[in-house]
């Protein structure tokens, strides 16, 4: 019992992120509606982004904006310690990922609208039925 409590405190965040990821993966596999699948994809994506951002977190550090750095006058006097600021590198990478995710989401929504125009449904099983009907007609 003495060992298990520090382990939980150190790792519970990662476990909950994995639960979130698996919710997204389940929605992508098992849901029937295309838009629900897209929501699952976005949940998966944000969970991975959350995991990456949490890797950069340091106890006792502040946000990655250098204090007194404006204009560069006082910054030369004070020495900057890396342990005082949160790691900015995961934030940069994930900023890119968020913007790309909204771009893909927009294209996916456009595709959904186009599919609905043609087949009048967004349910996967009905969609499969209508596609096969169209093929037999031709």
């Amino acid at each position, binding site marked *: 019992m003495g060992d298990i409590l520090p382990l939980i405190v*150190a*790792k*519970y*965040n*990662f*476990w909950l992120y*994995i*639960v979130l*990821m*698996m919710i997204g*993966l*389940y929605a992508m*596999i*098992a849901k029937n509606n295309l838009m629900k699948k897209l929501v699952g994809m976005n949940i998966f994506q944000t969970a991975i982004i959350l995991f990456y951002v*949490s*890797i*950069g*977190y*340091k*106890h*006792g*550090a502040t946000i*990655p*904006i*250098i*204090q*007194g*750095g*404006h*204009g*560069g006058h006082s*910054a*030369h006097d004070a020495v*900057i*310690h*890396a*342990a005082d*600021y949160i*790691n*900015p*590198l*995961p*934030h*940069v990478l994930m*900023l*890119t990922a968020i*913007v*790309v995710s*909204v*771009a*893909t989401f*927009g*294209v996916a*929504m*456009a*595709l959904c*609208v*186009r599919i609905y*125009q043609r087949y009048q449904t967004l349910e996967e099983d009905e969609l499969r039925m209508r596609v096969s009907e169209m093929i037999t007609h031709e």
Partner: protein
Amino acid sequence: MKFFGFVIVCLTGGLLLYGTMDLPDWGDPGSPASTHLSDYYIEHIVEETQVPNLVTAVLADYRGYDTMFETAVVFCAGLACFLLLRDFRPGKDRYFRHVPTGVMLHFKNPDTRLVAGNEFEHMDKEWVPSDMIIKTVCRILIPFIQIYALYVVAHGDFSPGGGFQGGVIFGSSLILMAISYNLKTLVKRVTEKFLSIFAAAGVLIYVGIGVAAMLMGGHFLDYGMLAPLLPSDPGHIRALGMLGVEIGVGIAVMAVMVIIYINIVSEGRHDEGL
């Protein structure tokens, strides 16, 4: 399929949970991710670039290629929406109102055209009568949102924010105009040509700054080489280069967000919608 999916999810989740045992503790300052490259960034960015916001400095300067192609991805998304949905044929059912008398005309044949100038007004069949309160509040709010968006772009070097956030906020102010009035109001003020030119111009500004640095004898996107072009303190030239790049990103993102919204909501017809 549900059961199968559940089994896969349980297996993957179990493996990942097993994998967390090897991860460093949460918030450990000595973890491998926070010790090698990021220390260099934190300790040297201010003296090298004079930009206190580390995220902006890494995003626009050290990883400039990355951000450039990300802007290209956003531009491609706008292009893909245009190509998927844009429909230049007029809609089947169209409603016109004769303005002096208020008589409604319903056209079912798409080839019929009205020649009278300002006497007939095109009516939107999806149009919902909007509330006066919503219209007034949005009309007052939109300029403030736009000013805030410009502030976010301009202060990306010193505080959270930057080109993406500013561009998205500016784009959503235009979308708010479409929602509170109707789509025609937006399309009349911000035409498709304008938006397309802006989306391409944003990417072009970014690439142009990179090529300008190359013409001045440096590497691609090496802002330090632009110093002779601008009559400013040479110490701040990297901050200025980043600002220029962020403006390009903001313009492209703003235009692309509005293009995607208009195309989705009007099914590519640009005449009627939410």
